[in-house]
């Protein structure tokens, strides 16, 4: 599904990712943990296609050269990032935005575009399953949303767009227990043999709800250690600093 080969990324000459390698197979859930400034969000941004980075190395997504694909084609081909800080976009209605997004993606996948009625039905089911108040869809995109609502909106978008590879960039940060459950239930409901997840998080807490297949520790722009779920628990106890020493 995803094959990252010695990926380096710098911004204004400062190296943030430095020889990063990672392979994700279909159906796998990978968690990336790491201290502040270790390059976690940069990794998510580079994979999604954000401008402003000088990039070296290679990334293959379904055997295609991901780094040469425009941002929207990455999304159309099934890549999704749940933003750490979802943007507030004044004037853009959440419902219209999601419908446009879904139909653009469906068109590329050779599926019929949904009319307003079908879309509404779909959204009603999804919001109900996720226990999200469907009223947020009539509001301007993320405008005046609480932190929790913004993150739930990201999960709702993911659920509706049904990506092949979902990257969650610190989606758990700032969530209360109930919201955390909604987010993780959303992820767990989408888990399948074909769909992969890359979950970036600071805390082991989220991984109590979403059991990853692999946990990687990112330090100074590369993976310092890889393990299974227990690695996250160990990290929580020991802290990043001691882990780095043990490297």
């Amino acid at each position, binding site marked *: 599904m995803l094959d990252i080969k010695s990926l380096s990324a710098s911004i204004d000459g400062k190296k943030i990712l430095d020889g990063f390698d990672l392979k994700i197979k279909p159906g796998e859930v990978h968690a990336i943990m790491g201290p502040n400034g270790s390059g976690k969000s940069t990794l998510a941004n580079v994979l999604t296609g954000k*401008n402003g980075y000088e990039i070296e190395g290679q990334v293959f997504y379904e055997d295609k050269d991901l780094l040469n694909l*425009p941002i929207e084609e990455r*999304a159309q081909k099934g890549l999704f990032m749940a933003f750490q800080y979802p943007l507030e976009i004044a*004037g853009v209605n959440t419902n219209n*935005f999601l419908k446009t*997004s879904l139909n*653009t*993606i469906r068109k*590329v996948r050779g599926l019929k575009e949904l009319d307003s009625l079908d879309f509404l039905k779909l959204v009603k089911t999804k919001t109900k399953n996720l226990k999200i108040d469907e009223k947020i869809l009539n509001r301007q995109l993320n405008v005046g949303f609480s932190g929790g609502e913004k993150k739930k909106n990201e999960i709702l978008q993911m659920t509706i767009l049904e990506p092949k590879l979902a990257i969650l960039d610190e989606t758990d940060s700032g969530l209360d227990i109930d919201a955390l459950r909604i987010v993780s239930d959303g992820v767990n409901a989408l888990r399948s043999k074909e769909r992969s997840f890359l979950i970036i998080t600071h805390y082991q807490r989220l991984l109590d709800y979403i059991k990853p297949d692999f946990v990687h520790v990112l330090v100074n722009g590369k993976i310092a250690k890889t393990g299974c779920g227990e690695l996250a628990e160990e990290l929580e106890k020991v802290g990043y600093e001691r882990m780095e020493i043990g490297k």
Partner: protein
Amino acid sequence: MILNFDNFQKANQSGSKLNNIRIKNLNIFKEKGFPTKKEENWKYTDLNRIISNNLSKLEILNDKKTSQYNNEWILKNFQHNQIILVNGDFVSSNFSFETKEKITIKPLKEILNEEKDFEKIRNYFDEQENSLNALNHALVNDGIFLEIEDDYSFKKPLIIYNFFNKFSENKIINNKSIILLGKNSKLSVLEWYRAESDIKYFNNTIHNCSIQKNAILKKYIMDSNLDNSYNYHFTNVKSYSNSIFENFLFSAGSSFIKNEIRCDLVETFSSCFINALIFLKNQQHHELKTNINHKQENCKSSQLVKSALLDKSNGTYQGKIYVDKKAQKTNGYQLSKALVLSENSAFNSKPELEIYADDVKCSHGSTTGNIDQNSVFYLMSRGLSKEQANRMLVEGFLNEAVETITEPNIKSLISKLFIDKINKTKFEINEY
């Protein structure tokens, strides 16, 4: 410009009083000419230059048989009263939804031709804001006179169709409209402009409105079906006690338009709302200039102007709030937000507050910037192309102005036209 005034006089017989006014004002215009940017009010719009570059062969329209228009231009599936003007001349009116006795509607020409009637509207020839007003007083030959009795609310909106056909090519058209709204009455007007494609003319109109106690006048102006026209609209509003004036402008069509709106809040508790959507491309040049004069206590004014400029277009908003020393407890507000979407486009914003009372609440704000690239990235990360993302963001940005419209039917009509316009526009926006 070729001002053949003798021919004009022959074609428009007027009484001696009006004739004297015409001659006096013609001389004022001849002395001053079209405004140049040396005048403070015109510093962002050098009309003299715009005219000499684009309309050097302007002449007065004296031809009589010019009132053809395309019947398909009348809105279908939208119940409304109507007045039709072609090339500035009154052609017909239809108020079939209303109680006839409550309404006086006349072609202005009839009033201008009758010495006795003219006396009633003589004061509408006093305005001397600039040389274009003088030109209008000198050469006005038709327009609208509409008077609504007290205690009458219109059942359906009124659409004033302003059509321009090929006979207006290279012509200067001067007309006036006078709308007098009685106490406790209510009227919503949509000024709908449409020209045969690429016809080039100069339209100089003075709109006079008087809103008596407790009356509500809502005025919506759409120029989006004009393309190569040049326009100056001066709107002069007198608002009496507890009245409401709501004005929305959809400024997107003409090559050049300057809308100048003066609203005098002459009695207590009157209010004035001016909201505009300015959406320009190519080399369009649009200006909105407002003068809100708070003359008595407890009046309210509010202005919201949202603009987006593509290509080499140029937009200007000059918003002035004047508060007389008697006008305590004034509440004045204005906000201008502009997206300058190309490095060759420009937006000028000049807020002005002139306050002589000490117990007032007045605020103003102005922002000009480019589209937020992080927002573009967010939308693109959901599969939208860059063009789709830009379009969605500009639409959302401008739509805030459409949202101010309080008349639901007109709002959905304008909203639909706005979205059509947005969908037909190419949004190849580069970062700069």
